[in-house]
């Protein structure tokens, strides 16, 4: 079974107190645990607010995507508060560099998912039919229902709830994915009990395995895979969650 990790990070520069991690070490770590492909965004770029830094980061992500193809899929980062400037950088990252998605982290960047400054960026993602991976589950900027509001406004854009509501908003994350056809859930940081409940409501086709891994502790990838295994799902459902759904989402 091919495992696709739809929520991974690469640390090209230091991020807060965390040092950078060599991309080779990250890729070896994912391979060690049987991950065929991972969708990466730059963790350090999420805390930058300078467009030139995002440009450099997106350039480096494109290089890594080419170097580690097909195992490395690059998601772009921009400063979402920069409106049209952010939209232009996203367009460049996709059309010139080959980025396959956009990552928005509302509380790190920081911007509320309901702030109108996001409109040019999301309109561009919508036009490009680009998946957008959101950190979710953290009030006041990134609750799952806020992202559901965006999903209604940008229906051509697949919106991924990066943590399935984390712990305390897991109920609303499942409700959001149930209500909106273009909203998917990821499994990282959501508890097994919440995932079981989400599966009942959302069904097996819109839940994506993710680890949030790529920082120093690569065993975290293994932990998150084991979490899915311990769900004791029918084989066909487990295959969808561990990779099949992600493959369909990215390749149509």
């Amino acid at each position, binding site marked *: 079974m091919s495992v696709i990790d739809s929520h991974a990070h690469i640390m090209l520069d230091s991020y807060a107190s965390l040092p950078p991690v060599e991309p080779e070490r990250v890729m070896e770590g994912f391979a060690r645990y049987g991950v065929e492909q991972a969708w990466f965004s730059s963790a350090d770029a999420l805390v930058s607010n300078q467009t030139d830094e995002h440009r450099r980061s997106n350039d480096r992500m494109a290089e890594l995507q080419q170097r580690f193809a097909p195992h490395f899929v690059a998601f772009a980062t921009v400063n979402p508060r920069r409106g049209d400037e952010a939209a232009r950088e996203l367009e460049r990252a996709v059309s010139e560099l080959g980025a396959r998605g956009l990552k928005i982290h509302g509380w790190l960047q920081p911007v509320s998912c309901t702030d109108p400054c996001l409109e040019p960026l999301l309109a561009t993602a919508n036009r490009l039919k680009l998946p957008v991976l959101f950190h979710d589950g953290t*009030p006041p900027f990134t609750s799952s229902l806020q992202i559901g509001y965006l999903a209604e406004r940008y229906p051509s854009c697949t919106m991924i709830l990066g943590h399935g509501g984390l712990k*305390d908003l897991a109920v609303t994350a499942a409700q959001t994915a149930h209500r909106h056809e273009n909203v998917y859930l990821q499994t990282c940081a959501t508890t097994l009990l919440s995932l079981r409940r989400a599966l009942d409501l959302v069904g097996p086709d819109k839940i994506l395995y993710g680890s949030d891994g790529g920082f120093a*502790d690569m065993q975290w990838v*293994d*932990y998150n895979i084991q979490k899915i295994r*311990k769900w004791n799902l029918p084989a066909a459902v487990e295959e969808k969650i561990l990779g099949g759904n992600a493959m369909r989402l990215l390749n149509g």
Partner: protein
Amino acid sequence: MVRGDQAVEELERSLDAGLKGLKINSHLQGFVLSDPIVHPLVEVCREYDAPLYAHTGTPITAEPFQLAELARTFPDVTMVMGHMGYTDFWYDAVPAALQSENVYLETSLIDIMNIQNAIEKVGAERILFGSDYPESDLSLELEKIAMIEMSDEARRRILSENALEV
């Protein structure tokens, strides 16, 4: 919790019957963790030498520093920081534990990196294994601890000895 004397009486009755400690979940029960409303119950814990376990990680009523504030008010009562501030208050878990020596950190749900950091900064002698079953899976949480490099003594302490002492 908001029933004052009735809550105190029920806690005393429970501890007299052999229960070992008090669990509070302030975000479900509807009060800020450090609110004086909880003080009469903590006084009962002190009287019975019983530990207090508190869920943490949920703003605005169940944050690590709120538990530390309560722990500093009652330095002779052992308090357990459930989930180490999982999810978004993991930044605060170790600094809050360092504010008050009677705070222990509990491992369920929180990630490996933060447990490693807690071992390094707070010490294995103040970390307790927990599973949060059935919210999580017991074997999964045990395997998480097994993945962390540490001395045999630290592992024994985290998995059982600290809890037995508490």
